[in-house]
């Protein structure tokens, strides 16, 4: 028998505190059905997962991030970017137009493709991309804002991130197309290149903070002592590993347009292509959220009056946005690395830097103790 009262009391104990909206929420909580709904929405885990900084924010980010990317990269390249869809608002609705187009296009599955995996893998790819959101702590020291608190949070996140390329491999294999195959193989190569430094960096940060619980991670970054100041080398290496993981220029190798015509996802059209396109940005968002949490102090920042817990969330989103914008604009600055150069960087410079960062963490811990 489900004890409704127990569930509700758990939810009521763990509510997001927004002083501004409090007068509005109080009467609503009193009402019979809507009260339960409001309680559910304002329940911290639910709030963080669905609203900020979870799915809703991610959705909005997906709408504006490609627009920002295209406009800013266009400015770097002395051109204008998309503007004809809504000239007065400088083309901000372009993404909606693109989505509509994807919806109306036909999803073509050619007869040599493995029909089941071809359609399923893009959907299954959602799993490792979205699950890390469960552990993202958008709060500050002493005020955690996380869906699930567990001592193994960072390990689980790393494991899930390691799982992502497997699905891309599956996608490329299911397409049964030589360009997809080449793209997939390149993705596999690149995966080997960034995975080890990535794990070493996370390890360094775990050592530095002394805990792999996301709550503890943010708590350890109190005041000015953000992760980026405690261990700058790790931040740089993590950033580069992030760029490699999401296949952004200069590490655009698996999906180089001019070389393998969009790599693993070449056979996708219509809404499946839309999914592939969007997945890249979702991956970026999740990884940037992770970076904000580890290195940029989570949701810390001056309190916005009246918003209470929400201000941490907003700061978190802003910091993630800054990281994302920097990552996305590298497109206009750097040319593409060759596969062997990328591997050399992964196993050479990045590994060394990661190990040095690990050493630094160990030294700092030793000093502290």
């Amino acid at each position: 028998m489900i004890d409704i009262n127990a569930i509700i009391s758990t939810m009521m104990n763990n509510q997001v505190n927004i002083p501004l909206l409090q007068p509005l929420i109080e009467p609503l909580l009193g009402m019979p059905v809507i009260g339960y709904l409001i309680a559910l929405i304002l329940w911290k885990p639910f709030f963080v997962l669905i609203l900020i900084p979870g799915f809703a924010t991610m959705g909005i980010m997906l709408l504006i991030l490609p627009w920002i990317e295209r406009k800013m990269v266009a400015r770097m390249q002395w051109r204008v970017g998309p503007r004809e869809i809504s000239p007065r608002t400088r083309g901000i609705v372009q993404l909606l137009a693109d989505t509509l187009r994807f919806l109306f296009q036909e999803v073509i599955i050619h007869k040599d493709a493995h029909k089941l995996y071809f359609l399923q893998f893009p959907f299954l790819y959602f799993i490792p991309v979205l699950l890390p959101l469960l552990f993202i702590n958008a709060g500050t020291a002493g005020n955690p804002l996380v869906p699930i608190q567990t001592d193994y949070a960072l390990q689980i996140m790393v494991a899930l991130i390691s799982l992502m390329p497997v699905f891309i491999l599956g996608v490329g294999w299911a397409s049964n197309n030589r360009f997809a195959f080449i793209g997939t193989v390149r993705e596999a190569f690149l995966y080997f290149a960034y995975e080890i430094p990535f794990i070493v960096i996370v390890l360094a940060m775990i050592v530095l903070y002394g805990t792999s619980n996301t709550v503890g991670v943010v708590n350890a970054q109190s005041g000015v002592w953000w992760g980026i100041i405690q261990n700058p080398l790790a931040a740089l290496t993590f950033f580069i590993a992030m760029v490699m993981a999401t296949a952004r220029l200069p590490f655009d190798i698996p999906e180089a347009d001019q070389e393998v015509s969009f790599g693993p996802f070449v056979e996708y059209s219509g809404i499946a292509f839309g999914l592939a396109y969007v997945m890249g940005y979702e991956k970026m968002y999740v990884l940037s959220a992770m970076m904000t949490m580890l290195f940029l102090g989570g949701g810390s920042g001056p309190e916005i009056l009246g918003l209470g817990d929400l201000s941490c969330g907003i700061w978190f989103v802003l910091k993630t946005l800054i990281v994302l914008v920097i990552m996305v604009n590298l497109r206009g600055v750097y040319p593409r690395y060759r596969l062997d150069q990328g591997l050399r960087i992964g196993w050479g410079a990045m590994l060394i830097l990661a190990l040095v960062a690990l050493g630094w963490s160990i030294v700092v811990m030793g000093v502290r103790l």
Partner: protein
Amino acid sequence: MKKVATPEYDIKDKLKYHVSALSTAAKEVVLPLNITTHYPRERKKMPDCFRGYILFDPERCISCFECSFVCPANAIWMKEAPSGRYYPTLDYGKCIFCHFCVDTCPGGALKQTKIHDVAYKDMDEMFTLTEEMIEPPEIIREDEGYVEYEIDKEDLSLKRTKGIDKLIVDVAPSQGVPMVSLCVEPESCLGCGICEGMCESGAVSSLKEDGMVRMKIDMDKCTGCGLCVKECSMQILRLVRK
């Protein structure tokens, strides 16, 4: 085989280049230099001799067929007009806008314009008849200004000017390569006078005297149209550079 090594930079140079690349990018984001022409709200200013749509003036045409012969894409076909003369028709599906025809026309009947964006509904419409070539096509002007690119040592910038750029300009018709007609085997001349009958500018003349015919080509009057060369029955006339 000579191997060219990739340039090696030391770590300081590398950092410097990274920083400069990122800072340039950042600067461009804030203060961009934009070289896109917002066509059709702006047009690029073309030079006066721009090779665009071709206009035709039948008054100056002498039906010499030179434009049709010289066209490298075979786009000009001569069609007979009710008056018995032949006038050119132009197939824009084939035209490569080289303007050889404009340059070759001895009478300067073909004229260039700056119009470069004519739209057709289907391929058949692209075959322009002589009557359609006399007046310029209907131009709907959406532009309020024109742009020019200014190149200044290493930098390129765009200058925007308000105002409408005239599309049909009066350019002096090209002189062409001045050619004249000469007889290369005068002993084989029949004295038939076909060349004289063909000549539009009255350069070829014949004088019948007792027992002989005197043929003369006046090089000042000769326009080099080549009609007499084509029609000579013994093929003894040639076009040579003046």
